[in-house]
Structure formats: C-alpha cells, structure tokens
C-alpha cells in the first residue's frame, strides 16, 4: 500500500513539477527558464509573455491536468464498482452521452456554460441508464455484455449527436471532431473553475467511501455482510462519475481511453485499494493528459492534433493487450 512505495509517490510528484515547468515553456513563443521565474514571481518585464502564460498556457495545462485526473478517477471508480476491469467512461458510453447533451445545448443555448454542463450531465446519465439497464438483466460481471452494451450505446449516441450537428450547422465537421476526439484548445479559467472543483469533489467522495468501495471488490453479498449499502453506493458513484465525465466532456470533448489505461497502470505501481488507486490515478492521469496535449500542440507545426487521436492510438493497443490477458487459457 501507500507505505511500501513512498519513493514512487515522490517520483510522481517530481514528475508533475517537471511536467508543469516544461509545458509552460512549450509553444510557439519561446520562454526561457529565467523569464518563467520572473513570470511566476510576478516580476516580468514583458506583458505579452505574461498574458500568454497566464491566459493561454496555464489554463490549458490546468484543464489538461484536471481532465486527465478526472477521467482516470472515473475509470478507477467504475472499474472497482462493477468489478469489471474494462469499465471506462468512454466504453461505458458516458462520453458519447455527454457529447450528445453538450452538442444539443450548444445549439439551443449557444455560449452559455451552465446549460452546457447540465445538458451534458443529462446525456451522460441517459447513457448510464441504458448501459445499466442491459447490465442488470445480464449480470454485472459479464465482461462481454457490458462491453457490447457500452459500445452500442456509445455508437448510437455519438451517431445521433453527429447527425444533429450536421443538420444544425453547415460546417459542422470541426464540431463533430471536437466531440468525438476532444481538444483543449478552448480552455480558459472559467472552464477550469467548473472542472477542477468537480474532480476534487469526486476524489474526496471516493476517499470518504474508500473502505466500502474496497469491500465491494469481493462480492456484493459479502460487502453487504460488512455493512455496506451496495446498491446505494453504486448508484451514488454512477451519478457522480457521470456528472464529472459530463463536465469534462462539455469543456474538452470526448477524450478516449484515459479512464481505462491509467487505473490499470496505477494498480501495478501503487496498489489496488482505493486510497492509492484514487490518488495515483489523479496524479498519473493528470500528468499523462498534460503530455498528450503537449504532443497534440507541438507535433505538427501549424496545426493541433485532436487529443483523442493520440489517446485512442495508445488506448486501443493497451485495450487489446488487456483483452488478451483477460481471456482464459
């Protein structure tokens, strides 16, 4: 557990600091470490650099960190709750549902944050509802059923949102790509102010219920004999993960596979119980998405690559490896 690997936590923290410093410097306007120091201490001479860092780069990095952390936490919670190692906000259809809700809100209430977030949440909840409906009838732990249900719901909802977008706007391709693949290019402090508290709240909630969630790793009935209200906790966390996923999707679009990959790595490095898993997922997920975004904005000279292209590429390989390990014999 936590005690056995203090150096790994230290390493992750150091990595986070290095990541932050390197990411602030990265971009079309070059910033030296000396200028960076001046900026951070508020003694900068050049106001344009100041604006670039504080208004463009920092909010984007913060958003990358919290979105990555949030998606990884959601994945960890979903996996442990369903005792299904393939659960993930994206494969569960949450991301597609939130995308549908968000794209509807964008058309009906353009440029308003609150309806966007709420509508995304409604969409994500719809997706959960559909998947849970299928899963309850066939049993939670049947990997194939949950996967197929999630993928089917996911495809259906993203098809509907693409359809709506094409009808609503003549040049919808960009929008569609955004909702399907995600991007951090429109990050601002306002968005961070929505996502960051939501992610932190979910993290705290998960830590508060960590023992109950650990007990659910064994068996529902066994958890109940330990005094855990299994159904209530599962419902609570399904709703909360939907909400957090929805807020992230409303700001950053649909970023795939972060919630699947990160918790698996964290289990190997930090442990399977909730305390190390949640904290580790937050740290590693955050660092991971910052780097994905760094590559997305610097790999091609003039153009940004959608985040989902990179995460999907890594994620699908990871997913195949995981499936191979899951198969008996």
């Amino acid at each position, binding site marked *: 557990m936590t005690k056995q690997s203090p150096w790994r936590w230290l390493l992750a923290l150091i990595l986070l600091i290095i990541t932050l410093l390197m990411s602030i410097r990265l971009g079309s306007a070059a910033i030296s470490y000396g200028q960076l120091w001046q900026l951070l201490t508020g003694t900068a001479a050049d106001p344009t650099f100041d604006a670039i860092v504080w208004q463009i780069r920092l909010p984007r990095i913060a958003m990358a960190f919290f979105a990555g952390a949030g998606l990884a936490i959601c994945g960890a919670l979903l*996996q442990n709750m369903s005792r299904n190692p393939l659960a993930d906000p994206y494969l569960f259809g949450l991301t597609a549902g939130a995308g549908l809700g968000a794209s509807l809100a964008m058309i009906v209430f353009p440029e308003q944050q609150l309806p966007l977030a709420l509508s995304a949440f409604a969409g994500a909840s719809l997706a959960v509802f559909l998947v849970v409906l299928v899963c309850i009838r066939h049993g939670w732990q049947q990997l194939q059923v949950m996967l197929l249900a999630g993928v089917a719901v996911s495809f259906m909802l993203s098809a509907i949102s693409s359809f709506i977008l094409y009808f609503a706007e003549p040049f919808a391709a960009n929008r569609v790509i955004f909702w399907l693949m995600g991007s951090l290019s429109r990050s601002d402090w306002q968005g961070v102010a929505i996502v960051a508290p939501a992610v932190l709240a979910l993290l705290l909630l998960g*830590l*508060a219920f960590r023992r109950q969630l650990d*007990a659910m*790793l*064994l*068996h529902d009935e066994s958890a109940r004999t*330990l*005094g855990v209200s299994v159904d209530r906790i599962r419902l609570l966390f399904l709703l909360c993960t939907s909400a957090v996923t929805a807020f992230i999707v409303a700001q950053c679009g649909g970023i795939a596979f972060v919630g699947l990959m990160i918790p698996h790595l964290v289990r190997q490095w930090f442990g399977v119980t909730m305390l190390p898993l949640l904290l580790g997922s937050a740290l590693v997920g955050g660092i991971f998405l910052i780097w994905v975004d760094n590559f997305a904005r610097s790999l091609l000279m003039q153009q940004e690559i959608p985040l989902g292209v990179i995460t999907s590429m890594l994620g699908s390989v990871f997913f195949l490896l995981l499936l191979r390990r899951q198969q008996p014999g």
Partner: protein
Amino acid sequence: MDPNVAAVLQLHNVSLQLGQRTVLEQVSCSVMTGRTLGIVGPNGAGKSSLLRLLYGELQASQGQVLFHNKGINTYRRAELARQMAVVMQSPVPVFNLTTEQMVMLGLVPHKRWFDPTTSQDHHQLQLALEKTGLLALRSKKLVELSGGELQRAFIARALVQNAKVLLLDEPTNHLDVHYQHQILQLIRQLNLTIVCCLHDLNLAASYCDDILLLDQGRVQAFGPAEQVLTPERLTRVFHQPCLLLAHDELARPVIHFYPKHQGEDHD
C-alpha cells in the same frame, strides 16, 4: 436447553418463498449465546437460505427472524455488521487484493468517512493473522492461497470485524480432511456464538453443540446434537441406511451410512 442462557438469534415459524418455490416452511429454532449450531440436511434442504435469512440477506415471507429479540430488519446494515460476521463461499475478486488487505476489510463497519487506520487496527490485524496462522501469507495475493488458507483468511476478517456472532456457510467445502478439522477447531476456540451450515454429519456431530436437521425446507429435528442425530431419523431423511457407532476414545458417535441390501427400500 438452559433457559438462563439468552437466545441470540431466533426464528419463529419462518417460511421463505423464492419465486414459485417454497424454500423453507414453518421453521422455528434459536441460537443460544456461546453455543455452536450446525445446520445439516440433504442437498436442497434450504441450509444456505436459512443462513441468509439469519444475516438479513433474504427476507422471510412469513414469520419472524429476531436478533437479540429485535427484528433483524430493524437493524441498520453497519450496526448488524458490527455484531455479526459472515463467512460465505466467496469467489476470488477480479482485482487482486492481498490477504492483509482483505482481512482489513473487517474494519469497514467500524469506520466512518475519513477515519484513518490506527495502530490499534494494525494490532488487531496482527492478532487475527496470528490466530488463523496466516502471518507468513499476509502479503500474498488471494488467488495464490489454497482453499483452506482462503477460508482462514475470511475467518481472520471476521475476527477483525470483532463480532460476537459468526455465521459460516459450508466452511469445509472442498477442503482436505486435515483442513476441515483445522477450520472447525479454529472457530470453536474463538468463544463466539456460531451458526454453521455443514454437509458432513460427522463434522457436525464432532463440533456442534446443537443441530438443526432440515429436509425439503422443514425442520426434522432441532436440539442438542446427541438427541438429534439418531440412526432412524438420519436413515429417513437421507434415504440411506445409517449406523451410529460409539467409540471408546471419542465423545461423539461416528455416523456411518451403508449400502442398501437388495430389494430393501427405506423410502
């Protein structure tokens, strides 16, 4: 039974209906403080269902299940879990916990919100692992444990749970003879009130104070082991001729079923 000893668990005319099937019919019995009750009977007699009624997982269709003279369903889950521990036949988890982590789950009903794990808790963990002989295996993953070790780990969890009542569902299933006795000796040493479903009548005869003999959801007999386990009754319930053999060195008789003679039929 001694009327001065309080009944911990009582069933009053309990019937259980699952779908169309009547699983239990008019079952009455009680579990006295500090005693060990064995639930025995042929396959499908309703042993596990009865146990699940006792820990509140199933609800009686008729009749009452009382725990310390209060309806079992009036207890909050965590409240019940602080007083009653259950060892059931659990599948091994997908995400692999270590022995130690699983045993620590016994703390769940005792902790709220952000309560940290204290040195007192670690002390209790240490004791539970010692008593169950699992100290050397504390960092092993659950899948690496043998059947007997896994059962002992669940009993260790119940010890950390620190409950006065222990319910076990076929704790000796799939275990070698040596481990069967080891597990039952272990739970007898704990000085708890115990209810235990058992398949093996000889184990029940050796380790249980009281026996509840079930057949097709009905109580065939209930009382002290030596009164319940008679050859005539066992022959009738198990449809197989039965002998009780007294042995000089054993306090309890040995139960032996033997082949039916040609043409003989006890049904």
